[in-house]
């Protein structure tokens, strides 16, 4: 009889079926790996999530693209009036509007990625409850989608620099690496809060407030040259400090070489990301039960 339990079980490694992958499902244990390989296996799904969000977002092309620009641009105008004009905040020898916009472009990328990633799992709860895939794909996709907005804002920044007659120095070759640093920071913070938000539903109210605090703790409206050493290097523990200062240095050639600060930020960002992924993986298996 089929499936009789007393029957002697055939070996699972029968020759003809040797090619089939074996999945083992076990209780969640305390020890987890970062699961990087599995993310790689699901890279096509990651691609499709990014593709879907871009498609929906830019279906009405003008509207989608304009949002990417309006937000940092209007903040720049406010900053220029209040901090640049009225409070006379120094701007490392470049016109204040370009100075603040160069900081706002990576900052807006980060802040958007953080807030959207933090709610991403809850927004995708239908999927999380019904289909298996590495859940990290969801916040990662959200962060990657932001790169397109960043690119659009970046073009505006180049236009602004041309308007003010600023030409980038050869330092500009570092800009892509600084973008990578911004992505790592956004992933780190976004993944932390995505996981926390599943567990504690009030985290979603905390994130916008946190993003605001973080903005003031990052030299977007003011230069980090206000600080002397060694505090400027210590300041780099906030990874966005390295991103913003590095970005200005690479594009505007502000004289304050941010080397040690950026190095500090790289270390902090990597620690943030590894910690985030580890925490995420630890609680990942319970998402479907708690979301």
């Amino acid at each position, binding site marked *: *009889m*089929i*499936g009789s*339990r007393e*029957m002697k*079980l*055939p*070996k*699972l490694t*029968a020759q*003809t*079926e040797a090619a*089939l*992958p*074996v*999945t*083992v*499902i*076990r*209780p*969640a244990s305390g020890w987890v790996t970062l699961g990087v390989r599995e993310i790689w296996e699901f890279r*096509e*799904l990651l*691609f*499709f999530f990014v*593709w*879907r969000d871009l*498609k*929906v977002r830019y*279906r009405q092309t003008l509207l989608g693209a304009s949002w990417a620009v309006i937000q940092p641009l209007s903040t720049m105008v406010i900053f220029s009036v209040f901090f640049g004009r009225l409070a006379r905040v120094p701007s490392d020898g470049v016109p204040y509007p370009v100075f603040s916009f160069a900081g706002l472009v990576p900052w807006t990328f980060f802040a958007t990625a953080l807030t959207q990633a933090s709610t991403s799992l809850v927004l995708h709860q*239908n*999927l*999380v*409850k*019904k*289909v*298996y*895939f590495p859940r990290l794909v969801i916040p990662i996709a959200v962060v990657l989608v932001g790169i397109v907005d960043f690119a659009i804002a970046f073009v505006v920044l180049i236009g602004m620099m041309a308007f003010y007659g600023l030409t980038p120095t050869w330092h500009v070759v570092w800009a892509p690496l600084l973008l990578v640093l911004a992505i790592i920071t956004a992933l780190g913070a976004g993944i932390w809060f995505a996981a*926390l938000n599943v*567990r*504690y*539903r*009030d*985290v979603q109210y*905390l994130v916008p407030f946190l993003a605001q605090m973080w903005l003031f703790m990052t030299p977007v409206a003011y230069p980090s040259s206000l600080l002397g050493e060694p505090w400027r290097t210590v300041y780099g523990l906030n990874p966005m400090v390295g991103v913003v200062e590095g970005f200005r240095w690479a594009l505007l050639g502000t004289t304050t070489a941010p080397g040690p600060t950026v190095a500090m930020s790289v270390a902090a960002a990597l620690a943030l990301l590894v910690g985030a992924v580890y925490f995420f993986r630890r609680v990942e*298996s*319970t998402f*479907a*039960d*708690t979301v």
Partner: protein
Amino acid sequence: MSALAIRIEGVGKEFPLSRVRDQYPTLRAALASGAQRLVGGGRRARAEGRFWALRDVSVDVHAGEVVAIIGNNGAGKSTLLKILSRITPPTTGRIEARGRLGSLLEVGTGFHAELTGRENVYLNGAILGMRKAEIDRKFDEIVAFSEVERFLDMPVKHYSSGMQVRLAFAVAAHLEPEILVVDEVLAVGDAAFQKKCLGKMQTVSREGRTVLFVSHNLGAVRALCDRGIVLQHGVVTVDAPVAKAVAAYLATLEDASAYDVAERTDRHGKGDVRLTRIEVTSDDDAPGTLTTGRPARFRFHVSDVLPGMSCAFDVFDPLGQQITYFNSSLSEIAGSAPGHAFVCDIDELLLVPGRYRIDAALSCNGELQDKLEGAVFVDVDHGLVRGWPVPTFTQYGSVVLPHRWTTPA
């Protein structure tokens, strides 16, 4: 004997009761209780109750077998499928599955309303675990199966729900994993499309793939499966050839027509009087499921007798839409003084076959005393209205009105 496809060994799943009550923990509360523990000397305020949705389930499934998992709501079927699909981990035990495992848990999960049908085929395929190259290859076949060719470049928000379901099932049906887990997907679409889905599943099993099938459609279960596993309260009670398993399951339904609700905690109202037990029976108090066109009797047992007490219940269709409402205070109650039960008799149940949710409530002089959402779920079986068969629930409606057609000259 073919090789093992799935080996389930001693699998159990435990949930904390707070989840069952559907409360979300907050960071604020967690921090507060953490601080309290710190101050109060490290003792937890109260041990949380836990409950086992599955207990010590051990099943071996061989490659090419089509196995039905049968059981009442809450018997643990969905939990088992969720563990198999790796959506939730088991608390105990271990499962080994050979080959790609694809699950059709709910059709249309992951559809995006703003995207076109064509785009959704790719998105949904990727979510279900298909490679882009694989979707490219099967694309025409999927579209042909779904019968929505003409609307392929239209956003799916303009699709009817039937069209969405067809497209979604078409994608899922072409997943072609070695192990296919199917949950209730056949309860959707019109009769012709259901037939097509059944046919597709039969083809899948003929190709030597392993299928795990969860359904309330016992006819489909009998037609498709070789073997049936009956789950009751999280435990495997029967594991036998399908005819035997279905018969054993039907025998258990007798108990299932009465529901003890006294212990439920998810209730609203003042609580001076409460619902304790609800019995749903067909004609002459015969136990078993209800049948379209036959009498139905709802008996609500209450904890106390209070003056001015009344009983009401709402009926919802499988999509959660309210269909009708019954209230004892709106009609004259036959019988003497109020007793420990309210009985509502329906002479002819004019609901189409399907699963219905009942919300029940007690009031005293207009004040809500006790309300249970989802107090009972009742299955209505196929039956005749005025001598004509009534099709299963579709999105087209859930009520049958007795009628006749003529074609006057």
